[in-house]
């Protein structure tokens, strides 16, 4: 009784309310529940008794003290998710109660601010990607890709999807799960051993077999490799009648061509670098865009905010094309997604606004230069960095070690350095390297890795290998 979060749970309110309802004991309101289903006592959950705020603070504080934060230097774990700079403004804005305690803005008249922020998110992402239509968010890149592939099946009515063998193995597994209810074959296209790029011959070969709904390419790839034959890929994919799905590292777009410029039908990306933080894996943000094409837009999953006008002709914003969604179309919907990552989309638009044109160009340059500096330093101590000798890399550097990287990793950890991603975790991708997987690690260097941090890492690796 008298709980801070349950205002009416007090004697007076209870009495007034129960009297009006006409019951003595609130349990009478459960009279339609079969007796045997009613629990005789509350479930044993929580910590033995209700904790007060101060108690839960102390309790969680003790637990979190068992986590180890790598801040100086930040982790070098590479892949789709890397440490990035989170401006303080981003947290300040998404901590605004009006935003974070709002529901999906079904009532546009009282939620113009939320709708406009989401419209701006869609718009800035559209400009970054050079795509015309961006939805209001998916859960993360893995599920955005899964939805893109499901969408390609609906649009093309074909049954094969080609993906790069070098893609993020976690994303691959997610895709496999999401399409498992459909009649579809996912085919992995190998990468060139020299350049790390997609093997175009093998791609063409698979396309020739026909029935291809979509080809998925990454740029830069999960392994950091820049794909420069995008025009060729565009051409051959579209000649085959398949859709081209591009997975892009958004941070690269300050310097690198946007996927809209090389024919992408659908673009997916991980929004995590855009001011979201690491969050031990989530929440993140799935960026999802399509070309201006009736068929594509109508088959697109997820919510869309549009710019419109009021009955008085003033500019206004509202949810649009809702007839695609599950609450109207039910089993015919383009997706089951309702709750998405709206607040993370707001974080991303605040981040992108803060950087602006100049800042975004700078971001790409910082990452390009730092990751190539890391690669050079690693080569200088005799490592194969990147593994693909002729690859041009961005952010991520796949590195081959003379022996088991796991040993090196543990030595780094002892020195307070969280090293690269141990690719041995992912047996699936043992076919993308000539060296054993246990010898390969994926490192990243971003704008949060200073020269000192990188030098510190390389020195520590050197010591670990020599020592």
């Amino acid at each position, binding site marked *: 009784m008298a709980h801070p979060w349950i205002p009416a749970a007090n004697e007076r309110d209870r009495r007034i309310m129960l009297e009006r309802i006409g019951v003595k004991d609130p349990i009478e309101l459960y009279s339609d529940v079969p007796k045997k289903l009613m629990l005789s006592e509350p479930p044993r959950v929580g910590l033995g008794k209700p904790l007060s705020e101060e108690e*839960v*603070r102390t309790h969680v504080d003790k637990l979190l003290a068992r986590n180890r934060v790598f801040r100086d230097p930040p982790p070098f774990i590479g892949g789709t998710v890397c*440490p990035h700079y989170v401006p303080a403004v981003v947290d300040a804005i998404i901590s605004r109660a009006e935003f974070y305690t*709002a529901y999906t803005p079904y009532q546009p008249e009282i939620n113009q601010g939320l709708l*406009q922020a989401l419209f701006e998110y869609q718009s800035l992402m559209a400009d970054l990607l050079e795509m015309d239509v961006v939805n209001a968010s998916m859960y993360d890149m893995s599920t955005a890709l899964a939805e893109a592939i499901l969408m390609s099946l609906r649009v093309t009515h074909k049954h094969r999807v080609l993906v790069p063998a070098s893609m993020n193995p976690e994303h691959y597994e997610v895709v496999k799960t999401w399409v498992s209810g459909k009649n579809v074959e996912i085919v992995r296209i190998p990468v060139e051993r020299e350049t790390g790029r997609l093997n175009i011959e093998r791609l063409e070969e698979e396309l020739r077999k026909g029935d291809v709904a979509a080809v998925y390419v990454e740029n830069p790839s999960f392994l950091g490799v820049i794909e420069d034959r995008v025009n060729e890929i565009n051409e051959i994919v579209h000649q085959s009648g398949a859709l081209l799905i591009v997975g892009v590292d958004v941070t690269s777009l300050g*310097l690198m061509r946007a996927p809209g410029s090389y024919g992408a039908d659908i673009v997916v990306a991980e929004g995590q670098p855009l001011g979201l933080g690491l969050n031990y894996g989530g929440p993140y943000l799935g960026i999802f865009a399509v070309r201006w094409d009736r068929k594509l837009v109508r088959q697109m999953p997820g919510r869309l905010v549009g710019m419109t006008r009021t009955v008085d002709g003033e500019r206004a914003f509202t949810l649009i094309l809702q007839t695609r969604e599950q*609450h109207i179309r039910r089993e015919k919907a383009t997706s089951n997604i309702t709750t998405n990552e709206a607040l993370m989309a707001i974080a991303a638009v605040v981040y992108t606004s803060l950087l602006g044109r100049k*800042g975004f*160009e700078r971001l790409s340059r910082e990452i390009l230069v730092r990751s190539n500096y890391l690669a050079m330093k690693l080569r200088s101590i005799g490592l194969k960095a990147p593994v693909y000798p002729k690859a*041009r890399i961005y952010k991520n550097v796949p590195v081959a070690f003379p022996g088991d990287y796991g040993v090196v990793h543990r030595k780094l950890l002892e020195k307070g350095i969280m090293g690269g991603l141990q690719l041995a975790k992912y047996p699936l991708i043992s076919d993308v390297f000539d060296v054993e997987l246990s010898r390969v690690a994926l490192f990243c260097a971003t704008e949060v890795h200073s020269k000192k941090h990188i030098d510190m890492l390389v020195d520590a690796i050197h010591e670990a290998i020599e020592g």
Partner: protein
Amino acid sequence: WPEPLIYELGGEGRRGAILPYESELEELEALIGGSSRLLPENMVRRELLLPELSEVEVVRHYTRLSQMAYGVDLGPVPLGSCTMKYNPKISEEISRDPRVRLLHPLQDEETVQGILEILYHLEKWLAEITGMERCSLVPPAGAAGELAGALMIRKYHIDRGEQRDEMLVPDSAHGTNPASAAMAGFRVVRIPTGPHGTVDIEALRAALSPRTAGLMLTNPNTLGIFEDKILEIADIVHEAGGLLYYDGANLNAIMGLVRPGDMGFDIVHLNLHKTFAAPHGGGGPGAGPVCAKGELVDYLPRPLIEYDGRKYYWDYRCEKCIGRIRAYYGNIIPLLKAYIYIAMMSGEGLREAAIQSVINTNYFIALMRGVKGYELPYDPSRPRKHELVISAKPLARETGVTAEDVAKALLDRGLHAPTIYFPLIVDEALMIEFTESETREYIEEYARALREIAETAYRDPKLVKKAPQNTSVKRVDNVYANRPTSVTPTYRVYKRRLSGEKLVL
């Protein structure tokens, strides 16, 4: 004051953020011998259309936009089926801790024992509350949990060598149920609602067949009515070889009192951003753990959180499992908030919250009894649980004022509209869920407002149809918003139209 678009602010040359070590860049470029050759020539971007603003301008713009949004911290959001309860500030405070925020998902497990311990206990608690054995915390939202559940059902039958491709879904179900079933490859069979607002058992029996994979149900259902024949339903479906899937959207009414597992459900998903007080974020992020019992445990998406008596770890082993439903482990921040909520409520608190949510609903029904213009369809004498659905059909018939008009008129009084036109089986539906977070006074005000709107409608229906007048913008033109020649999903499309292109969708 209308707020300009971000594109209409700022000016050339302004910057809102300095990156961490910008001063080093020249030195690094020199060390690697220049950066020009790092990018393939044909991949160099020529144009980047982003606005340029100072930090001050960005802060003001989004602070002002936030003031034009509406959430639970400003007032009640009594949307039926949405369980918009209060989001404790302590959860926000704790979840800002850098010892969560700065953890990389692929850090060595020995360096994240604290958060793993939290997730481990959270799973145990959710299993206990639902009466299930294990939960996967990975699904990032309820719909993802549903998809996982549907895929589990699918794989379960396949592994048993059975061809079961039909999923039964009541006509009152949330749209996500049929959508998820369809995504998992099922054909959806609709089960009608009987005269008491519960599943029509005869129709259910008739729909069952050797192709039946399962039944997706929420209980209490979207009418706020408890499916009192649930044990019978479970028996029938199980006997027919189907499985029972529980949609956790409406758990708030019964948590701590009744468990889906005891009702006979095999799989349950939860919405932590509804029932367990994680904020809804204007649309997300959420968290939609999926739980199972018996044989179905083996099918849960991986990884699961485990403890070997010494350390906590992720178990990726997957013999029968459906695979992975999202990269990494799900939305950790809402999961942490649910942990805090349950720790602070404990079993008694959850029960208390459920009971109060039900009292609130039935108090409102008592206040609405006899108010002209509205009716409570399906057995009005029966208590509702977390929510209720009233129909404005009499009002619409007699005055032309529809449920949507009523919703907009509520906005005009500073009250948030309920969910409207859902469930589809009720005409002119107003679906209202106060949750335990609302005060008696507010419920009384809501009832009074509905009565007064109806009175106005009987007197002067046009007046009601003009609403809203007091909101920051007038009624939004939905037709224009969706017309192929004017639909505008991004500023890019707007500019292209401005420059003369004919863009038609």
